[in-house]
């Protein structure tokens, strides 16, 4: 147990150090000292970490390495001398020695060129870090299987009315669910629905969110309890005792890991329920907050209900059947049902999709675009690394030539150079892992608003580590091989000749690399530019409400009809409250509950299924409070009576149901014929649309029902427009709710600004990420241009000197260098444009209001790239004009 803990506590740096010790030092030395060395390093590492942070700990590890190599070489040399006496030489040992030598040499030479080493490691760290973070995201969300038993068998089912997209998965009614369940021969089918409940008897009353099982869904899912048992179909009998299963987190939080809770009762919504089981930690389905599971307890009438659509359905394929068979079977069942219950099921399909697909499907495009973007960043990084290595190689031509002249074989030199680039890639890769870790942490910190499915399952795991290391080693090998091949193939005599500076040969290679960097940066910038334009347009969409100075909170009360009206009055009396209203659902935050919308003046023919519209129960002040504008007629009034109800609809609803006439004065009812939410209601007003489906989507056709007609509605959002500080209003409001009933919790406190901003959070998230990647790409590409031009200037110093000596003006010299830079950019720009044209169409679903080939964005991005290149060319150009002809020519 203790040893296990100690192992866990070892930091990554310590583990690397231990690995190096085992790898580098001969066994004899290790037996004597390795434990001590490790112990000392552990303490050094701990001290460094606690006083100067993680980065310092990595630097401390790096500073250990040269000493370690010296030690390794010395120890191995000693051992070889001893062994020479015994006249045995091991080839393996020799190879290893030269590897250690290569590594030590590589370290020394990198230390001698810190500018180069730091630039290379930093760019690599950025590229690899971004990749690690995004790959972790993709891995957690898209690649890893759902944490259910045999997750590949799990399907999601739903109904889809006529005219909807093929993968629409609407919730269904209890009647339909039980029919599907009893008729299917290819799947075990069950359902679930979200439920809330107020937990009392454990400190402050607390609103919990949970799931109700319908038809034994826990057995179908194949969940394993930590202890106790799961809910079964038998629990759903209204006559059987009330039971509950807790999530691991709820159990841990409320009962502090006490296993004796089994059989104890817990008070939820005033009902005592027996705790029969606790789920394992990390169990996530169906996602989001899920604090408990209770069995549904429908009576026979409700089991046959077909007009309340709230049940989500899953099915587990039997081992003998396939997805195609299940789809065919459900098609048949849908046909039967539309014949048997035409009012409810005419023209309705039953959709079967793999469960994982329905959970992560929406995020796929977004993640793939990000994945593509980071892959581009990594490519640019690698190109830049190759460029740096080439530049360095040409500076070292003489050194290599000397080594070859002294008898180093070509392969030995190539190996040395390769070792250097692999070492660089490994250091960069490890630093990248660190960057990736912090980057992921940052991204997940924004997760509260980002709506990414399975976000709770994202973590940096070993596959990601392997991926990063692989990428950086392959990058090192690939880009190291270019200069290694060039140099080792060179004729040493040429390089040794006085006055030769570098080779002209890698001129082309370097320019080609810079051009590809620029082209890649262009593509990335275009992607980011399009997202930014689209985000800007999204932000400018009028949400239809005025969210300024509005605070909202949610309260759920059962069986206290006067609670809402009395607390509303008292909040209205608070100083600083301009107006206050109740709404069953907040604007901008989604669809909310709905019902069939029926015109009483034009009943549908027999057998035609009505269409539904979301509705909100609101008090009359609601529209003025949120700032929703009146288009015609009037708002709801407090004089509207429950027995002759008035309703207000939005423009989208007016357009859908009354396309060519005025809806004012028309009578409607909402709901099924035998189960009406509101009956004989007169439309008295039409209000402007609010962007409830998000700023980029069409508004839902929505009806507004007066609170007076639905006084027993169980839960409401309070919407308060204030002139005072929202925090003080919130405190006073909480006090009012507490005074009315101390058992009732206040939940989901937020300003309407927050609600509006949350609606664009996913767009903001991808825009910011792509923007960051594009900036990194731009900087790296700019560095590339700068590097190549500086290199050219250095290489042509003599030529420039002659030109200046012969009277070339500084402008013409500058033009020479900048012109060269512009040539590179132009080629990169053209290639990038073609790439961007080809690739941006994959983003079309992420865009709003701009086409993937938006000319303005393309032009703007081109301009940015040109400007960056101009800046990058300026410094080398200025240096070129300062070439002193005397100094430049002195060597001749």
């Amino acid at each position, binding site marked *: 147990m203790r040893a296990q803990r100690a192992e866990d506590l070892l930091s990554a740096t310590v583990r690397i*150090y231990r690995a190096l010790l085992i790898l580098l030092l001969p066994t004899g030395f290790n037996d004597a000292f390795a434990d*001590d060395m490790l*112990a*000392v390093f552990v303490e050094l590492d701990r001290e460094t970490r606690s006083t100067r942070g993680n980065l310092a700990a990595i630097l401390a590890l790096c500073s250990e390495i040269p*000493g370690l190599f*010296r*030690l390794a070489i010395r120890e191995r040399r000693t051992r070889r001398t001893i062994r020479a006496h015994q006249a045995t030489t091991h080839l393996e040992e020799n190879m290893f020695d030269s590897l250690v030598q290569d590594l030590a040499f590589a370290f020394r030479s990198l230390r001698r060129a810190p500018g180069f080493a730091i630039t290379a490691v930093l760019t690599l760290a950025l590229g690899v870090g971004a990749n690690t973070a995004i790959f972790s995201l993709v891995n957690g969300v898209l690649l890893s299987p759902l944490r259910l038993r045999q997750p590949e068998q799990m399907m999601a089912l739903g109904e889809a009315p006529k005219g909807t997209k093929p993968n629409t998965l609407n919730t269904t009614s209890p009647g339909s669910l039980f029919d599907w369940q009893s008729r299917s021969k290819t799947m075990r089918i069950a359902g679930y629905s979200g439920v809330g409940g107020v937990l009392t008897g454990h400190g402050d009353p607390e609103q919990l969110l949970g799931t109700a099982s319908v038809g034994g869904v826990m057995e179908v899912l194949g969940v394993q309890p930590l202890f106790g048992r799961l809910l079964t179909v038998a629990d759903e009998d209204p006559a059987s005792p009330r039971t509950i299963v807790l999530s691991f987190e709820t159990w841990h939080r409320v009962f502090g890991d006490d296993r004796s809770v089994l059989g104890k009762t817990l008070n939820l919504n005033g009902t005592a329920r027996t705790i029969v089981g606790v789920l394992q930690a990390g169990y996530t389905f169906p996602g989001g907050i899920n604090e408990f599971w209770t069995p549904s307890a429908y009576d026979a009438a409700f089991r046959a209900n077909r007009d309340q659509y709230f049940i989500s359905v899953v099915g587990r394929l039997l081992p003998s059947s396939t997805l195609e068979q299940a789809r065919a079977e459900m098609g048949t069942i849908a046909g039967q049902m539309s014949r048997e219950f035409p009012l409810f099921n005419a023209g309705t399909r039953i959709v079967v999709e793999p469960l994982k697909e329905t959970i992560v499907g929406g995020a796929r495009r977004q993640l793939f675009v990000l994945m593509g973007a980071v892959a581009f960043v990594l490519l640019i990084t690698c190109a830049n690394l190759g460029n740096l290595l080439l530049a360095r190689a040409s500076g070292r031509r003489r050194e290599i030539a000397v080594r070859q002249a002294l008898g180093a074989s070509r392969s030995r030199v190539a190996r040395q150079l390769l070792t250097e680039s692999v070492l660089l890639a490994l250091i960069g890769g490890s630093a990248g892992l660190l960057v990736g870790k912090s980057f992921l942490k940052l991204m997940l910190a924004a997760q509260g608003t980002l709506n990414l499915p399975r976000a709770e399952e994202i973590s940096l795991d070993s596959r990601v580590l392997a991926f990063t290391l692989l990428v950086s080693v392959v990058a090192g090998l690939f880009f190291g091989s270019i200069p290694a091949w060039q140099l080792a193939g060179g004729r040493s005599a040429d390089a040794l000749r006085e006055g030769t500076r570098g080779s002209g040969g890698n001129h082309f290679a370097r320019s080609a690399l810079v051009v590809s960097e620029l082209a890649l940066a262009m593509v990335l910038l275009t992607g980011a530019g399009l997202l930014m334009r689209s985000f800007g347009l999204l932000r400018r969409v009028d949400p239809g409400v005025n969210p300024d100075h509005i605070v909202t909170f949610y309260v759920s009360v059962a069986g206290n009809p006067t609670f809402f009206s009395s607390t509303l009055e008292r909040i209205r009396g608070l100083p600083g409250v301009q107006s206050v209203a109740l709404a069953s659902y907040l604007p901008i935050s989604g669809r909310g509950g709905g019902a069939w919308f029926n015109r009483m003046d034009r009943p549908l023919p027999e057998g035609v299924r009505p269409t539904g519209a979301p509705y909100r129960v609101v008090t009359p002040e609601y529209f003025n409070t949120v700032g929703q504008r009146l288009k015609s007629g009037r708002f709801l009034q407090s004089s509207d009576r429950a027995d002759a109800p008035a309703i207000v609809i939005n423009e989208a609803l007016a357009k859908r149901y009354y396309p060519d006439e005025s809806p004012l004065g028309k009578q409607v009812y909402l709901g099924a014929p035998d189960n009406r939410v509101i009956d004989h209601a007169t439309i008295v007003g039409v209000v402007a649309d609010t962007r409830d489906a998000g700023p980029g989507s069409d508004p839902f056709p929505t009806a507004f029902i007066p609170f007076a007609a639905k006084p027993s509605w169980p839960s409401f959002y309070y919407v308060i427009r204030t002139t005072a500080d929202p925090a003080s209003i919130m405190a006073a409001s909480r006090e009012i709710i507490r005074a009315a009933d101390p058992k009732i919790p206040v939940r989901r406190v937020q300003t309407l600004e927050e609600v509006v901003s949350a609606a664009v959070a996913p767009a903001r998230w991808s825009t910011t990420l792509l923007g960051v990647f594009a900036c990194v790409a731009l900087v790296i590409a700019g560095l590339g241009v700068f590097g190549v031009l500086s290199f050219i200037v250095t290489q042509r110093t003599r030529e420039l000197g002659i030109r200046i000596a012969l009277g070339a003006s500084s402008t013409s010299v500058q033009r020479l260098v900048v012109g060269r830079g512009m040539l590179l950019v132009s080629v990169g720009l053209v290639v990038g444009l073609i790439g961007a044209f080809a690739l941006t169409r994959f983003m079309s679903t992420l865009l709003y209001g701009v086409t993937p080939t938006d000319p303005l964005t393309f032009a703007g991005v081109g301009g940015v790239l040109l400007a960056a290149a101009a800046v990058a060319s300026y410094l080398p150009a200025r240096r070129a004009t300062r070439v002193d002809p005397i100094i430049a020519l002195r060597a001749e």
Partner: protein
Amino acid sequence: MADDRANAPLSTQVFHILLSLVDDDLHGYAIIQDVAERTEGEVRLTASTLYAAIKRLLETGWIEECRERPRVDDDARRRYYHLTALGRHAARAEALRLERLAAMARDKRLIPAARVAKPASS
């Protein structure tokens, strides 16, 4: 960093290790801390350089491993090192050599004559 040879003059690191062991028997980490403290962070030994030096010092017999543990409550796995008479002699010889060098520099007025090295605090 120059490669240090086994014979004198001693490398800075070796000299500092010997100095640390003059008053007290110490374990590896304590040596690093002591050196860092004494030089106000100027000389920071790494675990690798420390044990490279310790191995050679053990081989030349200038230090030895303590058979008795100085503190009973300490981590049992730690090894403590003790400065032998030979080691003490070598450290003293090195100190005198450095002092002679400093005196010469002072004669040449390279460093102010008035400045006398601080007496070693105990």
